[in-house]
């Protein structure tokens, strides 16, 4: 089995390149947005209010939610990068390893677990 072919053969279309780069960048950007507190917006479910960017929970208004904003930030960034990658010439696109699509999420798993260290209390 020739594994070098399987990791370096290009997606057959510009959509394939877009999808590959989008998936990789979305995962990375999502984790970055989570750890660096970079939501596109903040949703306050108690009052149904949406603030742009990062906003702290206000007293007596319940919690603030950033998850939707992280998704929006990551999707925007990944769409731009995926679109740019799809415009690259074939000889460059063909060098993007397909294996990154599944390796990146696996590598990000311990990072995510670490980012949630607040919850792993042994008491």
């Amino acid at each position, binding site marked *: 089995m020739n*594994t070098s*072919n*399987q*990791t370096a*053969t290009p*997606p*057959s*279309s510009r*959509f*394939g390149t*877009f*999808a*590959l780069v*989008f*998936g990789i960048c*979305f*995962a990375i950007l*999502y*984790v970055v947005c*989570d750890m660096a507190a970079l939501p596109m917006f903040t*949703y306050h*479910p*108690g009052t149904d209010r949406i603030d742009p960017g990062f906003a702290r929970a206000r007293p007596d208004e*319940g*919690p603030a*939610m950033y*998850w*939707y904003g*992280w*998704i929006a930030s*990551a*999707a925007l960034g*990944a769409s731009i990068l995926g679109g740019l990658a799809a415009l690259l010439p074939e000889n460059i696109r063909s060098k993007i390893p*397909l*294996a990154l*699509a*599944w390796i990146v*999420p*696996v590598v*990000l*798993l311990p990072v*995510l*677990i670490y980012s*949630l260290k*607040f*919850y*792993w*209390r042994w*008491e």
Partner: protein
Amino acid sequence: MDFVFDYISVNTFWTILSIVHALLAVALLGALTHQAAAVFAPPRAGNTGGFVTHFRSVSGPRYATAVCVLWVLTFILGGWIYAKYRIYVRIPIEQEGFFKTLGAFELKEHLTTIGLGLLPFYWHLWKNARNAATDRARKWLTVVLAAICWYAFLTGHVVNNTRGFGL
């Protein structure tokens, strides 16, 4: 959506959403598990076998679109319920001190989101399944998505057991 509450209570509405979310997750779990088994441990040629052989004998490409649609639908419903969870489920669980349960649920939220972003490439790989050069990427991406789905399903089940319906 307020007109719905003329006919059913708020609790009933969110309970129905939670159950539909769970049923979609069951369908997704089944589809992905079949597909992952087929790609990870395909049956040997000529093996007519029993349950396990039939379980992994499905045609992977036929599942790809269904998996994507089910993942998106399950995700949208989960994202809708999540706002309610944040106030009426998470806070009481915090007050009870079940932090590892909450952490496991946060991890589920992160992993399913990352899985969502991988769906376009997953779909692309399966729609071009005849391209042998992508076999390895297709196989492992499917296995990763199946693992995420199993983790999310079990974690959601545990959180539901922790807090329950009728909030």
